[in-house]
């Protein structure tokens, strides 16, 4: 199975400006989609995308065809950058706890007032990281189960379990889904 990105990558390594633009046009939306949904923050997603491309530029001249699929590698790079940021968030939250318990809207509270997209965003943010990662890779990034499992470093069975648990949690958080469905 050939890697559809390899030829473009070799031109990038040679400093072809058109190839650079083409690779950015091909991969940037995917990176923003991945990081945006992992982090729930557009600005941080842009930072991750920019950092990921710095690694791409560094890696391009050294890329070994056939060792790994470029898109898979890029997903792993971007996810590592996302996890760095999620870890930093937790460290800051631990080091600087709020002065009093947060009584504002929790992940499930107040969802009814938001539109569906925003409600899903809140529910996704409340998922455990690995469940969110599985759903983002399979549902939004449309990776196959074998590729998604490889990116996550888990078995296909474990991926399936993460997906199932994640989707059940989302359904519980978005409890009124049936109201929006119109049967024929």
């Amino acid at each position, binding site marked *: 199975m050939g890697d559809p990105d390899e030829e473009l990558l070799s031109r990038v390594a*040679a400093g072809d400006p058109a190839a650079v633009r083409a690779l950015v046009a091909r991969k*940037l939306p995917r990176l923003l989609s991945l990081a945006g949904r992992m982090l729930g923050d557009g600005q941080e997603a842009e930072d991750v995308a920019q950092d990921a491309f710095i690694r791409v530029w560094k890696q391009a001249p050294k890329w070994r065809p056939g060792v790994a699929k470029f898109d898979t590698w890029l997903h792993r790079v971007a996810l590592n950058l996302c996890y760095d940021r999620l870890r930093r968030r937790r460290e800051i939250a631990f080091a600087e706890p709020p002065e009093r318990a947060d009584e504002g809207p929790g992940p499930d509270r107040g969802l009814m007032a938001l539109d569906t*997209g925003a409600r899903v965003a809140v529910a996704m943010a409340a998922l455990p990281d690995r469940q969110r990662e599985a759903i983002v890779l399979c549902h939004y990034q449309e990776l196959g189960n074998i590729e998604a499992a490889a990116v996550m470093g888990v078995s296909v069975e474990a*991926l399936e379990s993460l997906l199932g648990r994640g*989707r059940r949690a989302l359904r519980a958080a978005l409890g009124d889904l049936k109201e929006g469905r119109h049967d024929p």
Partner: protein
Amino acid sequence: MTLERFAALAEAYGGDVARWPQGEREGAAQLMAAEPAQVRDILARADDLDAALAAYSPPRVATGLVDRIVAGAPRPPAPRPFGWLVPAGMGAGLAAACAAGMVLGARLSTPPVQDPDSIVAAVSDEDVGAYFDEEA
């Protein structure tokens, strides 16, 4: 395929059977023919969640992001300064001299070992493996 397995697959991969793992689709199709009513309920439930997930759009690309990214990309090799001053004839002569030297050198010396592994090692980067080895 059992109904339980069908439900587990719908719960994991959603209500569009075309997006399920390829090896499961044939069994799913047979069950859909055998148990249409029960299967329809399972898929409809999964479809509801799929529709909600589809409403969550990724962030838009900010102005200037592409230019910032492109600015760090590899650049084409810079042209040699005053290269245009070298006459074509001189260039051809130099090329011929180089070729002769290479032939002579090849005859006089032992050829370097071109072990594929050493070449790969020379151009490889631990980043490739590191991102796959690291457990997130």
